[in-house]
């Protein structure tokens, strides 16, 4: 662990005082929000499929599931909305240097993201409260704008992040930002692939998480149509996503060596330039030395450069003050890839077995794996974000602005971080308690779950 601590210490010693807490604050609030954002993006599509099945086939099981999922989404979307608002504030509060200088370059996609959030929130309200109050088909159609808005919103937010990795749509002349073209900044070179990667990730996270809930129920012996369908629909979504993700991820990483050599070198733990580069699994980088890795020859060049000979540029060719914290980036990247490959193999196994007429849902070990697949997908998601974000350091706008220049000069940011951790922990506990109590009441046969505003006798007034 010592290299990690050394890395952290070095960061603390060389950077301005407010930088580290600001980065941790951003990491906490973004890392928390991104999980809920996934539900905002991918859940509506799954609800739509379930609801559609319910209406088309007059399938009461499917309708019941869609109804429950809608209620769950009401809770998740609410905390997603407020934690997203936190990020809007933090953009200005924590990074005044970034927003003051580049606000008019990077802001446009946020404006469109705001529009899609509007659409999502409006139709969510209509859909959630429309059960039994609208003609069924029209009611179902209300999910469509929600799902579309989720996709557009993802594109817009990712567009900003892609711009930070591959800044474009402006020039810097004598320290001034000139020739701003916000459309070019929004549709930068990286946005399509980075969007694809995140969009698919959202389906993996939500698909595996929801399927895992019903896998858990089956482990407890609840093997009815309700649990099978509740498992299968999200699992099919997760399957498509898990199969596609390695390819999209590979394409995204395709020219990383040209764009951000330091990030690629940290991913691959390339201390020197070797031709061909091996794939280094695990290990540590400490003071210019790499140790403890399992090396597979050729594979590094093959995966990172699509070539048997072209090397990964070594860290020794890059000035030390432009190195990201290498071990964090390396381990985060490899965790993401490792989990991604594992999940891909698991879905392949499931469908291959099914093709051979074996149902793995009868296998307790497979069910157990499905229960942890959701959390694993979340870990992969977080690891991926850590890899790309920490890997971009010390830059906030790659090649143009260092993160230290973007931070504000506040004291007391550690207090803010502490309070945020407390509030978010409270919100997490609240959500878990409420969602579990909903599941418990559903199992007990309640359907509508009215909230108890009064002691029992007054309950008669509720309809």
């Amino acid at each position, binding site marked *: 662990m010592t290299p990690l601590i050394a890395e952290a210490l070095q960061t603390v010693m060389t950077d301005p005082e407010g930088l580290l807490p600001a980065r941790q604050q951003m990491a906490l609030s973004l890392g928390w929000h991104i999980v809920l954002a996934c539900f905002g993006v991918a859940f509506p599509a799954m609800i739509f499929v379930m609801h559609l099945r319910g209406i088309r086939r007059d399938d009461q099981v499917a309708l019941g599931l869609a109804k429950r999922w809608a*209620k769950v989404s*009401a*809770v998740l*979307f*609410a905390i997603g*909305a*407020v934690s*997203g*608002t*936190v990020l*809007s*504030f933090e*953009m*200005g*509060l924590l990074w*005044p*240097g970034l*927003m*003051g*200088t*580049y*606000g*008019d*370059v990077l*802001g*446009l996609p*946020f*404006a*469109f*993201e*705001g*529009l899609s959030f*509007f*659409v999502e*929130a*409006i*139709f969510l*309200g*209509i859909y959630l*409260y429309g059960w039994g109050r609208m003609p069924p088909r029209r009611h179902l159609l209300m999910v469509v*704008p929600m799902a579309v808005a989720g996709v557009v919103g993802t594109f817009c937010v990712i567009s900003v992040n892609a711009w930070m990795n591959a800044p474009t749509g402006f020039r810097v002349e004598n320290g001034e930002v000139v020739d*701003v*073209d*916000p*459309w070019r900044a929004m549709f930068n070179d990286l946005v399509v692939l980075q969007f694809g990667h995140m969009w698919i990730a959202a389906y993996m996270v939500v698909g595996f998480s929801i399927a895992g809930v019903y896998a858990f129920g089956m482990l407890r012996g609840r093997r009815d149509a309700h649990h099978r369908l509740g498992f299968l629909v999200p699992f099919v979504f997760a399957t498509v996503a898990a199969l596609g993700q390695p390819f999209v991820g590979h394409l995204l990483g395709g020219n990383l060596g040209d764009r951000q050599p330091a990030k690629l070198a940290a991913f691959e733990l390339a201390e020197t330039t070797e031709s061909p580069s091996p794939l280094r699994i695990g290990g540590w980088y400490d003071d210019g030395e790499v140790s403890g890795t399992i090396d597979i020859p050729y594979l590094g060049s093959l995966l990172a450069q699509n070539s048997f000979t072209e090397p990964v540029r070594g860290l020794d060719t890059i000035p030390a003050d432009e190195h990201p914290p290498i071990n964090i980036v390396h381990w985060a990247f490899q965790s993401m890839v490792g989990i991604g490959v594992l999940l891909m193999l698991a879905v392949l196994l499931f469908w291959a077995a099914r093709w051979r007429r074996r149902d793995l849902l009868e296998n307790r070990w497979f069910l157990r794996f499905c229960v942890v697949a959701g959390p694993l997908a979340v870990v992969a998601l977080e690891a991926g974000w850590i890899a790309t974000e920490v890997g971009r350091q010390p830059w906030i706008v790659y090649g143009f602005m260092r993160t230290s220049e973007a931070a*504000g000069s506040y004291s007391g940011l550690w207090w803010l971080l502490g*309070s945020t951790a407390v*509030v978010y922990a409270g*919100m997490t506990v*609240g959500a878990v308690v*409420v969602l579990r*109590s909903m599941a*418990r*009441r559903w199992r007990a046969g309640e359907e509508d779950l009215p*909230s108890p*505003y*009064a*002691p029992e006798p*007054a309950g008669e007034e509720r*309809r």
Partner: protein
Amino acid sequence: MSLEVAVAAALFVGVVAYAVFGGADFGSGFFDLTAGDARRGAELRTLVDHSIGPVWEANHVWLIYVLVIWWTAFPESFAAAMTTLVVPLLLALLGIVLRGASFAFRKFSATLGQARLFGVLFAASSILTPFFLGTVAGAIASGRVPADGSGDRWSSWINPTSLFGGAIAVGTCAFLAGVFLAADASRGDRQQLAEVLRVRAVAVGAVTGAVVLGALVPILDDAPTLSDGLTGRAAPLVVLSALAGAATLWLVWTRRYAAARWPAVVAVASVVSGWGVGQYPWLLVDETRIVDAGGAEATLQALLVAVGLAAVVVVPPLVYLFRLTQSEEWSRH
């Protein structure tokens, strides 16, 4: 009209919309908090839940709209305001988080104890949030946000204009909520509840009106630039607000709740617009003019495209949502 002013106008439309629609949602927290113990307050709390449930998230997005347009169109002034006003903004943010989360949690609480806990959090944060946002408005309007963001972290928002701004924000929110909740109760055939709300809404409205008018006195002294505007260019709006407020009270008192919603909206929209028109042409009063604050021209043009798109894509469904929630069918559950 210059490009900068056009974008600033679009931005301010968002401020007014947030004050009116978001405000009505926040204001319901006041009635929730003062509804009495669990038994007596159950009916009112159920009504609050039902009234703002479908709309609060959509209304909340106006705030995002305002932030996004502000930082994209006027980035330096945004950074300056965020840096100087970090304390009230963080407190408002805390309120926003607690309000939204505990509202959703309360709706699906399993026990009365949980519903109580989340209910108190929801209601209290619904009152604190508009207060702190009001102090932010007061800070900008009284010229306490320097263009370089170096304003005092405390006196910038603890001063007469800010504190009255906060009080006005809380009052107008509660006033709007009272009128809308009374209308909802009456439409849902809960006349007894409507009666209770009628009295409270009139009381809240009268107090708020008095605070708004009374605030003019210290503001004249504390914020000269704003008060020049309020007594000059924006005077018709101040008068309109007073008239509409009085009309609302009269309509509520005579139990014409549905009709009272319109003048209530006009009263709040015009008092907020009065602030905007009053501080024109300043973005940060006495510090930065709107025309000098704009970011890149191409970005301002692109933002107007986004605003135009919003008018086409967002407004019709928003109207549809409001029509549904204000219909009789949706009120009878």
